[in-house]
């Protein structure tokens, strides 16, 4: 006989349910996350609060345990998949309810590379943190980045690569931005398993981001600096 009792999510208090959502995200339980999001919205929670207090905070905990080697990629992907389920419910409501906007980002995996797990995680976490993200997908030549940056009001460019053979392409993009005199108009963040801080500096990026959580924190810092400069 199991000691475990079935948890009725709708019977939990707001505080208990929020903590339960952190656990459910950690365990990658998408159906439960979606149900809990609906419950909180039904109780009158603002979509932005559901996003930040339940989902983003839960993923923050997942991120810490991933960084510390307690969780591994499969578990993080399951958690991300659960969060994605919650985000899909919240996204249209966030726009309607005027959630705070942190800034705008273009992101994409570089030419020759089709790996997008890290990029997708960053996209999701950035959106969760209040950034508007235009995801260019995989295998992007330099023109894709430049055209998109020139077509909108962007603050940040994010580039991702998983292969040592494709990561040098990030420099091609940054060099092109320099040639066009647009490099200093954007914060350039780079990431991917084979990269490191030294590589980020060498190619002229503003920062190398080890994981999605670091990407969010770095982006926030740069946006905060930008606002301070504008306010000075």
């Amino acid at each position, binding site marked *: 006989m199991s000691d475990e009792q079935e948890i009725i999510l709708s019977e939990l208090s707001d505080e208990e349910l929020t903590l339960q959502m952190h656990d459910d995200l950690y365990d*990658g339980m998408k159906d439960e996350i979606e149900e809990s999001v609906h419950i909180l919205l039904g109780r009158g929670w603002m979509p932005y609060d559901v996003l930040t207090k339940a989902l983003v905070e839960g993923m923050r905990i997942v991120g810490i345990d991933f960084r510390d080697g307690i969780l*591994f*990629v*499969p*578990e993080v*992907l*399951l958690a991300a*998949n659960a969060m994605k389920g919650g985000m899909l419910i919240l996204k249209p409501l966030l726009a309607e309810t005027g959630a705070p906007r942190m800034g705008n980002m273009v992101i994409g995996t570089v030419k*020759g*590379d*089709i*790996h*997008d*797990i890290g990029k*997708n995680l960053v996209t999701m976490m950035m959106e969760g943190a209040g950034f508007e993200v235009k995801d260019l997908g*995989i*295998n992007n030549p330099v023109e894709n980045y430049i055209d998109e940056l020139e077509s909108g009001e962007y603050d940040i460019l994010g580039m991702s690569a998983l*292969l*040592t*053979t494709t*990561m040098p392409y990030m420099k091609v993009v940054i060099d092109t931005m320099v040639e066009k005199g647009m490099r200093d108009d954007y914060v350039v963040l780079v990431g991917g398993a*084979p990269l490191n801080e030294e*590589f980020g500096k060498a190619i002229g990026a503003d920062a190398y981001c080890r994981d999605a959580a670091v990407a969010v924190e770095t982006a926030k810092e740069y946006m905060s600096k930008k606002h301070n400069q504008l306010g000075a």
Partner: protein
Amino acid sequence: MSEVSDTTLTTDGLSAPIGNDGRVLIIACGALAREILALIEMNKWTHMSLTCLPANYHLYPDKITAAVEEAVVKHRPNYAEIFIAYADCGTGGLLFEKCKELGVQMIQGPHCYSFFEGNDVFAATSEDEITAFYLTDFLVKQFDAFVWKPMGLDRHPELLDMYFGNYTKLVYQAQINDPALDAKALAISEKMGLPLERRFTGYGDLETALADL
């Protein structure tokens, strides 16, 4: 060698060198052990000895350079020449720099998929094949230990699309003709949901690199 399992080559490598006449030691990735021993036998390269590092270092490429250096330092007093049977293998040039510093040669190219196919051929075609997932004989044999389990797909098959959704084909680079491996490669392609393309590569530039020693 026949008593050493592929699982051992994946997780432990081959710490005691096979052959020991003090001339040339090949320090190789465990994934290349059988191919290198086959080449030694086929070409009667009796001056060569072989030791291997665990093949699963490829899951953590940052371990490779330090492990190679440690092996070179350990074996150098006992051999006139040491050769590193690794390509760049995800080290981002660090292994190349280390080999240069240690004064030892290594295999040219980005990884084994490239040198088995021939680095020149691979470089010419790889841009058109970025959506190909490659397997060698060793990886066909060790697919579950090397790919399926570390990615958690044995426990969570629903992650398959997140990992491989952007791939369009599975290329099996065969080093030898073995119907059992062909059947296994086909089963893997069905499991991954990708069409299989079998290419017989033989030993490619691995043989060329060792022939110069």
